């Protein structure tokens, strides 16, 4: 099973040269660490920055420069700043090539739930509903099962939805899966030393296994 760092590392392979990318809070934020420096990739932070750089050193820390996770950050060369309305105009415009988000549940038709557990926990949707409704290409970083072993890749989400039919790909601690336009999770890669039967047991939604499923490769 992958650590959250390995999930981030695997997702980084989906990032292509020339991409504008929005990274959600949590594991998605870690993806930035694994994008090769030789690649021209620009990160958007929905609180108003295009061209997010690395975390600052002590001297660079600026309370007026944070990311959507409220972490102190720096700016990349060529960055630009804007207000929240312009930021979400940018997100809705479809100019972002890739959006990476966390999820509590994903259904086999690509629905996603990640903002509320009724009566127990409400974080709020933040920018997630805008992102999932507008992004052309969404990859979800998530745990395959809850702590008590229940699958989070479901036939149908049980939690309040964030968006409908929008997830294209999932990288979990067990596998890489495509969400097919016709419905169902197609198994693409297995985590090292995790068998297809294990993944099948851990997936409540329809799992499609075609041919040999390779193990993920880490450099």
């Amino acid at each position, binding site marked *: 099973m992958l650590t959250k760092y390995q999930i981030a590392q695997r997702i980084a392979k989906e990032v292509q040269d020339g991409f504008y990318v929005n990274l959600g809070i949590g594991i998605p934020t870690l993806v930035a660490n694994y994008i090769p420096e030789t690649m021209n990739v620009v990160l958007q932070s929905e609180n108003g920055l295009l061209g997010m750089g690395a975390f600052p050193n002590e001297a660079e820390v600026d*309370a007026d420069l944070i990311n959507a996770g409220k972490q102190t950050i720096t700016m990349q060369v060529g960055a630009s700043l804007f207000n929240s309305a312009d930021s979400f105009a940018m997100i809705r415009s479809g100019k972002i090539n890739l959006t990476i988000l966390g999820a509590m549940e994903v259904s086999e038709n690509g629905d996603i739930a990640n903002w*509320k557990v009724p009566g127990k926990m409400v974080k709020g949707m933040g920018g997630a509903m805008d992102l999932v409704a507008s992004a052309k290409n969404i990859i979800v970083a998530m745990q395959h099962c809850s702590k008590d072993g229940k699958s989070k890749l479901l036939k149908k989400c049980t939690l309040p939805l964030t968006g409908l039919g929008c997830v294209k790909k999932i990288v979990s601690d067990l596998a890489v899966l495509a969400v097919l336009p016709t419905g169902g999770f197609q198994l693409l890669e297995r985590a090292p030393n995790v068998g297809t039967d294990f993944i099948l047991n851990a997936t409540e939604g329809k799992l499609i296994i075609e041919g040999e499923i390779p193990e993920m490769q880490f450099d």
Partner: protein
Amino acid sequence: MINKVVASAYEAIANISNGAVLMVGGFGLCGIPENCIAALLQKGIGELTCISNNAGIDDFGLGLLLQTKQIKKMISSYVGENEEFERQMLSGELQVELVPQGTLAERIRAGGAGIPAFFTPAGVGTEVAEGKETRTFDGKVYLMESWLKADFALVKAWKGDTAGNLIYKGTARNFNPMMATAGNITIAEVEHLVPAGTLDPNQIHTSGIYVHHIFEGKNYEKRIENRTIKS
């Protein structure tokens, strides 16, 4: 130029009374009007409706006014990182309208732009869509959302001039510029107040026309919520 300067946060908020609808700028603790919040706290103005992306943290920002129960209702996109906010919401003590962040930003812009309603894809098929009109454009479903306005908008800028022009810094800009346009009365607190004519007209983020009162704030703490250093 029309002079908008007042002496202090207390003078600026003098007309805010119990039950007012406020917009309060900031994202997390970044770009929040610290002086105005402190003045509201000290004056004890209550029954407030606050439109603000977050409610600060437990012991700073709007969280201070949650602790003292001065806020009746929040319209926000995110509750995380504020236990008191989540507790009051789950217990029902506090009315909360949760709005997707981009929809919140656009509704505020619409309020300041004379646009009573617009269509956005955010929230289609979710709780957010309940009771709202949907419509299909070019094969995609959208929700109709309406403008937001406030009795008072409280914004924080980096620099401002006596004519009310504002320049924000870094990601402290966030919701402040739209809120400045959507307040019936807009109060701006700035770190550096300069004479009109000092700022380059080409670099101004908020035109003075939107600002009714401006003052130079004091003792900015600018607390960092999640200090993260390169490893």
